[in-house]
């Protein structure tokens, strides 16, 4: 694979000669796309050059059938903004280069992304700052002016009152298409969501769609250096992002702290101060129930992909055996039916 990446880069790096790729490793995680890091060296204008890159490649099947064009557009849109993102280099749709479409971005050095490492005592001093920064960045994502041709090309802007319905329709269709066995708890959740629509948001914003500890790259100095995994980004109700990050699924410390790093009330207070917008608790409740349904749609998609033999990624049956039932338990709790 190193030689194939080098051949691709040779055609992309203007004036580059003797392109070589080394230190190619697949990064653990990345259940929806294969994520690889590598180092490239080349000669340009008589000088040796080097850079480290991240390659995100479409797998044969995954947890989520998402649109790489959309993810790439959001990364590009947030470049040089208050929301830190890695610099995008190239997107490639021709699958012949690496047996699948992919995009390449610059690698950010000296960062961590491991969700459990952040719970370790060595991170006690940095953790509160990372938590605060995380919700300040979320406010910046939601303040971003999305009325640009690049984003409107990949995302349709709903009316404020339609945000909930569009997302629910989307994810109910995902459940419909991917459940291999009936899902009585998810179906009850969907009925509750349709009976109890949330108040419309004051304005439509960019929604990251997977904003949580796990998709932030953090530094020991307490700053967040990048927000990644924009594959579910869209335009909609900003409360969707808050509710998603508050899910039990991401309570890595198992002590009720969201993402294992911050109490919900503190996260909301930080977000409200940074955004200047009060969080509507009825909307938050609705999007919390929705988040469980959406997550179940993702887990069911991965289960079907594996069961039908379209992928042999072992993370997918692990998800099937553990997260689907855990999500049902969480959904019962969100619905006030945990007993």
């Amino acid at each position, binding site marked *: 694979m190193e030689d194939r990446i080098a051949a691709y880069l040779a055609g992309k790096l203007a004036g580059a000669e003797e392109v070589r790729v080394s230190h190619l490793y697949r990064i653990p995680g990345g259940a929806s796309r294969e994520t690889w890091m590598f180092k490239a060296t080349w000669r340009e204008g008589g000088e040796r050059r080097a850079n480290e890159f991240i390659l995100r490649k479409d797998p044969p099947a995954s947890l989520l059938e998402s649109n790489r064009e959309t993810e790439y557009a959001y990364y590009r849109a947030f470049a040089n903004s208050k929301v830190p993102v890695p610099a995008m280099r190239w997107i490639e749709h021709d699958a012949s280069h690496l047996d699948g479409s992919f995009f390449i971005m610059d690698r950010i050095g000296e960062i961590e992304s491991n969700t459990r490492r952040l719970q370790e005592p060595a991170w006690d001093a940095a953790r509160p700052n990372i938590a605060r920064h995380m919700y300040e960045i979320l406010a910046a994502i939601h303040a971003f002016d999305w009325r640009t041709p690049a984003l409107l090309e990949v995302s349709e802007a709903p009316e404020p009152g339609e945000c909930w319905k569009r997302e629910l329709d989307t994810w109910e269709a995902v459940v419909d298409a991917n459940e291999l066995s009936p899902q*009585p708890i998810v179906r009850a959740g969907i009925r509750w969501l349709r009976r109890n629509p949330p108040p419309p948001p004051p304005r439509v914003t960019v929604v990251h769609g997977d904003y949580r500890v796990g998709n932030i790259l953090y530094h020991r100095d307490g700053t967040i250096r990048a927000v990644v995994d924009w594959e579910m980004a869209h335009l909609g109700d900003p409360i969707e992002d808050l509710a998603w990050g508050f899910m039990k699924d991401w309570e890595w410390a198992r002590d009720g702290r969201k993402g294992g790093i911050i109490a919900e009330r503190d996260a909301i207070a930080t977000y409200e101060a940074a955004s200047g917008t009060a969080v509507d608790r009825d909307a938050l409740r609705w999007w919390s129930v929705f988040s469980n349904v959406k997550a179940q749609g993702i887990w069911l998609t991965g289960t079907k992909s594996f069961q039908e033999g379209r992928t042999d990624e072992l993370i997918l049956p692990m998800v099937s055996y*553990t997260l689907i039932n855990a999500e049902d338990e969480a959904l019962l709790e969100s619905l006030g039916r945990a007993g």
Partner: protein
Amino acid sequence: MKPDAGRVLNGVAISLMTKVAPEVRTPFGQQLAGLSAVLLRVVATEFDRMADRLSVENGAVAAILADAAAIVPDTALAERAREAAAANTSPDLRVSTLQGINDRLRAILVDVHAAIEETPGEGARAMEERIWEELRESTRRRHVEARI
């Protein structure tokens, strides 16, 4: 057959963790070995309990459907519920057979639950609570300790 399947799967899991993973060169490979080990342990648990879980659950859902048939106003749905409850007999104890019955019963449970939610009266409310209790119990039956 001894050693039983659970012991074999757990033995493979231990070998993966203690003998294979330390020899693997990359973080991705090490994670894959660890994940494989945990997955084998989860499958070992499921292997032992799955037929029992399905059999117990099929009986519980069939009983609910039989009683709910008297409450749901939709006569066609009531008839489907009665027929499904009566058909809860398995020609064998293969997991695939029991799972097929479970899928049919729980599909009708979804429709019955939706109908009961819209049906007024104390009988419907009591049935609704009984369905929720079965759904809670269904998660207890499937609970596994391993998390990723």
